[in-house]
């Protein structure tokens, strides 16, 4: 267990967002946070590296409560990729080097540049090192910010909708990579994601968030039609395509016709 979330509550002045959320994530695990729009997924993610401060509850990385640490100390252990990315006029290499900021003192060391290069290698972005951010496609940019978070050498990686702006190929590539990183570097990866099918395909465990509370928590077994329907507020079926479960929404009046897909 590397990350432990202990009953956090969060509210905006107008309304409460999170209530009594608790879960744990292990090293090497790909953990998906799911829920409808406005359920508080992104808010929850931002509470995990103190971008937001919950009104009560605690978040532990290892043994330490992140709210007793400085922002920089948190950033040494937790990497974060925001949902929206800016594109300043900056080379890819410099953008990835920025991931070393929590480790830097007055200036860069060769350890910093080495870590940045290794991150670029891992994401097969070496040829892009001298390109500028504002010249990249959405998929390329997503990989660059992922490389930045990896150069940060975190123990926990938080990704907010990493696939929302990507085409099918890039979605698959990015999530494959993320899973590989989780395994190879033995770090916990926590992903907020809308696409249930991608989540089912790549994540090890799931947290279904409904109205700011944990509706269900566990492995694939919790991804039942009943749970998903309850969380998203529309009837669904889970069908199997070979070994891959697929969530299909059912429109009202439509006769359910479970397709026995597969070979």
């Amino acid at each position, binding site marked *: 267990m590397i990350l432990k979330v202990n009953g956090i509550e969060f509210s905006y002045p107008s309304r409460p967002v999170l209530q009594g959320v608790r879960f744990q994530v292990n090293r090497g695990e790909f953990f998906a946070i799911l829920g409808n729009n406005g359920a508080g997924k992104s808010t929850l993610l*931002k509470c995990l*590296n*103190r*971008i937001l401060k919950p009104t009560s509850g605690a978040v532990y990385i290892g043994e330490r409560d992140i709210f007793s640490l*400085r*922002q*920089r*100390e*948190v*950033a*040494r252990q*937790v*990497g*974060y*990729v*925001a949902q*929206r*990315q*800016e594109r*300043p*006029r*900056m*080379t890819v*290499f*410099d*953008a990835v080097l*920025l*991931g070393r*900021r*929590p480790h*830097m003192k*007055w200036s860069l*060391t*060769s350890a910093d*540049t*080495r870590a*940045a*290069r290794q991150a*670029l290698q891992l994401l097969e972005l*070496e040829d892009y*090192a*001298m390109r500028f951010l504002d010249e990249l496609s959405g998929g390329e940019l997503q990989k660059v*910010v992922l490389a930045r*978070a990896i150069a*940060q050498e975190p123990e926990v990686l*938080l990704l907010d909708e990493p696939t929302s702006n990507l085409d099918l190929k890039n979605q698959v590539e990015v999530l494959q990579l993320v899973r590989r990183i989780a395994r190879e570097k033995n770090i916990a990866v926590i992903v907020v994601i809308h696409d249930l099918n991608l989540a089912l395909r790549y994540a090890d465990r799931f947290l279904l968030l409904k109205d700011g509370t944990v509706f269900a928590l566990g492995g694939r077994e919790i991804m039942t039609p009943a749970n998903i329907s309850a969380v998203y507020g529309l009837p669904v079926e889970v069908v199997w395509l070979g070994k891959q479960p697929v969530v299909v929404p059912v429109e009202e009046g439509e006769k359910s016709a479970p397709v026995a897909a597969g070979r």
Partner: protein
Amino acid sequence: MKWVKNLMKSRKESLPAGYREYTQRKVAVIILLVVLSCFLAVYAINAGSAGLSSREVLLTLLGKGEERWRMIVWNIRLPRVLAALVAGMALSLAGCVMQNILRNPLASSFTLGISQGAAFGAALAILLLGAGSTGSTAADAVIINSPYLVSFSAFLGAMASMTVVLALAARRDVSPEAMVLGGVALGSLFSAATVILQYFAQDVQVAAMVFWTFGDVGRASWRELTLMAVTTGVAFLYFFFNRWNYNALDGGEETARGLGVEVEKVRLFGMLLASFISAVVVSFLGIIGFIGLVGPHISRRLIGSDHRFLLPSAAVMGGFLLLAADTFGRTVMAPVVLPVGAVTSFMGAPLFLYLLLRGYRR
């Protein structure tokens, strides 16, 4: 020394191809700017009615010139040239940091109302405290009796303006656009207050108030120059120490937090220091507009938005531009000396328009 070599080697190996050349080009641009500024400085000391040659200027600077050259160079020309360089650096640096922090290319001490606050403070001192009156010398028609009192009052005015801006900056729900609009409102509020003071002032006082607002780098003595140089130097070190934080902020606020930047702190202290050095310059020299916009903007064009290089380059560029503007103002209609504030606004305003037309991006 062997370990240095090894370190250099391992550093080199860990950099991607072309990266060293890329950064060296930026350093070269900065060095070139420094060299150009040095040449311009010698030319500026040289330019004027005393008829010194460049060689004589250099000799005098090295302490080998004649006595009368020494008087002109050390007491009049050199402080003026250095004041232009230091003030330009301060204003440009302040603009550069404000633009990053407020995420708005139009932020500067001039657009945020800090200069107008200073002008109001100066006018108040001249009216109420009798700090200004006319006199007649060969050089200027207007004399300000107690320049330190005026400067101090101007500084308080700038600080008042700055406090409002900082209070806005500290609020999360105030957008960058709203902040610049707030600055514009503040600027016109202080301008209006200055006009009201002028309305009630006697004509000699009005003359002194108007005269004060013409930014003029010739006002600085060695003592003021030292004060400006020290505050600017300290501010530069602080800004440079935060260069990676500013780069992180360019990636968006949440990304910056994720990279360990304490965003509120970086913003507040950055705004505080940037406003402070502008206030110091403006209260000694009067209003000098647009250097804080033009300096950083041209530097971004030349060097990119990486603050490791942008900060030094914006500083040097600001110094260079202000010195060029002052030298131009001194020579174009010689022996009449145009106030440098007018010259900078003259060259800054078209650029401001150009920025707007281009659909600005930082």
